[in-house]
């Protein structure tokens, strides 16, 4: 079959030669034997683990933080959407509150996109992944949002949010390089901004020890008010004990981008403009909520 030879690479299957028919697209999906033994899905989540953590976390959500939502109906019931929020607390308490709240109220799973640092920690990394954490990689986000039409949550401030000390509370940091906007554009989904009040006070950082952080290879090593106040009573447990700050989460209007999805590149200026506008929106909403907040503990 020498005639097969011609044709540039990439332009495969020239019409010259009758090529054996490829599998027709309407072929029913094949069912191969798949002897699975565990319920860990492709994202590393385990429904057993998630059920257990939901049951353990629910009292903290409803009794301790008494999370209150405003505008929950703005989160789409179906289709992909990328939620972005401000990030705070030495061990951020906002991520589980948002994820649990939406899963409880809307019965939609939320995929928390987070720093890879979690994955490097023994035990914690595995538990984090089983409970629903996914590494924030553009490929993961695209697959979740565009192909599987899921809800994803990301904190564009990254570790710069939770690592700020108490005197800088509710001052949003830079929103990364706007990667979240680019992902939403490429996936053709809206960005839903969330403003969270309460997480800052649940575990405020008094000061940080950069030398310890460097030695341990973690982004920051905080000394929290919780350690100082509760340490004498709880010992090391105080590291993970939150103050019962009242949580209020406000859902802002979804931002739709008027661009074609699936492009290789998007205009950097549009991305940065949109990213900055969303940051501004969340910042304004936070100031509004703080204006009307009478008490840190009772809202």
């Amino acid at each position: 079959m020498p005639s097969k030879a011609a044709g540039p690479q990439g332009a495969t299957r020239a019409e010259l030669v009758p090529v054996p028919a490829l599998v027709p697209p309407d072929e029913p999906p094949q069912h191969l034997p798949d002897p699975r033994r565990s319920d860990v899905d492709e994202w590393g989540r385990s429904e057993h683990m998630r059920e257990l953590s939901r049951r353990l976390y629910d009292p903290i959500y409803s009794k301790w933080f008494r999370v209150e939502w405003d505008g929950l109906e703005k989160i789409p019931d179906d289709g992909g959407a990328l939620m972005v929020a401000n990030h705070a607390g030495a061990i951020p308490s906002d991520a589980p509150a948002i994820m649990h709240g939406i899963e409880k109220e809307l019965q939609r799973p939320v995929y928390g996109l987070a720093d890879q640092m979690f994955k490097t920690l023994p035990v914690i990394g595995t538990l984090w992944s089983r409970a629903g954490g996914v590494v924030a990689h553009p490929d993961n986000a695209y697959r979740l949002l565009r192909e599987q039409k899921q809800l994803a949550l990301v904190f564009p401030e990254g570790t710069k949010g939770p690592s700020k000390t108490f005197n800088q509370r509710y001052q949003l940091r830079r929103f990364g390089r706007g990667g979240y906007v680019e992902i939403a554009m490429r996936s053709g989904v809206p960005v839903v901004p969330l403003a969270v009040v309460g997480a800052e006070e649940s575990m405020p950082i008094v000061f940080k020890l950069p030398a310890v952080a460097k030695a341990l290879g973690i982004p920051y090593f905080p000394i929290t008010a919780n350690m100082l106040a509760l340490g004498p009573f709880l010992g090391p447990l105080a590291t993970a004990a939150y103050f019962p700050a009242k949580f209020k989460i406000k859902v802002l209007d979804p931002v739709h981008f008027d661009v074609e999805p699936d492009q290789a590149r998007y205009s950097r200026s549009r991305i940065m403009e949109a990213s900055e506008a969303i940051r501004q929106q969340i910042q304004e909403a936070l100031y509004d909520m703080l204006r009307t907040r009478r008490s840190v503990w009772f809202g």
Partner: protein
Amino acid sequence: MGRRILVTGLGTFWGGRVAQALEAQPDVDVIIGLDTRTPSVKLERTEYVRSDENYSILSRIVAATGVDTIVHTFLVVDSTQMAARTMHEINVIGTMNLFAAASAPGSTVRNVVVKSSAHVYGASAADPVWFTEDTRRKAPLRTRLERSLVEVEGYVRDFALDNPHVRVALLRFSNVVGPTIVTPLTKALRLPLVPSIFGFDPRFQFTHEDDVIRSIQHVLDHDVAGIYNVAGDGLLPWSEVAAICGKRTIPMPPFATGLATDPLRRLGVDLPPELLTLLRYGRGVDNRRLQRDGFRYEYTSAGAVEAFVEASRLRDTVGDHQPAYRYQRDVELFFRHSPSVLRNQPSVESKS
């Protein structure tokens, strides 16, 4: 005129299996196998040429035989097999000479299939759950094996760019298991206790060895070009892999893991650095591109592991047996040359 195919690495498991599969195809006229060692599998009509490990004689063979297709299976993806220097000679210098020969003036080569490995993606905490063929690796190049594989892929890319009239397919296989292949991974799974790293339960993806051969054949038959991941559907936590094998895991310390595995190496349990990072972070590859081009897998990841375990159990009970390729020289010679055999009978030709 049928195809004329050159298979590199005939003495390796893959080269031998590919040659066997090609022998069964009536439209393949000539199969020439190249290796430093004599082939370990039974072969009927493949011609074997002994060469040095970096293929310095290759251009003469290509010119003399007029092959139109090269199947390059002679890439070492198991760093425990040999010294780093030998691996470099085989992988990098061998591939370089191969492509030099294939792109020589007047070369008849029109199809090239290269068997690479998903090791080119590395494994790190920053990885996506699934690597697509275009995802760039996140982990820095650390091990010699990964460096050599990435260098090889560079040669493949250059060759494809310089020779647009040649179809080049690069297949990246992920953790191959099966009844016969032996890799550091299958050795680890055959230990009484399967090593793991404490606190980590990464997810693995497996390819059955039959799917490897079938995918290479698919690429040859359908003139597919480009880069493709080859791996079964699904990702399994390492603990589940051990469970399918009916084994328990034995955790190694998460810190200073290298120190802990050193005594194991002395005991003959060699865990190469690529496997250690996999035991920490795992790796998934997106296998949909090849499926879109018509390939159908016969095994999922879990199915491949089970097939491997069942074969190991059988081997433990009845010892080595070779049912795979029933080639009896005398019978085949009779079929081929005896005047009593009626020609063009499908049952004889296709030799099921």
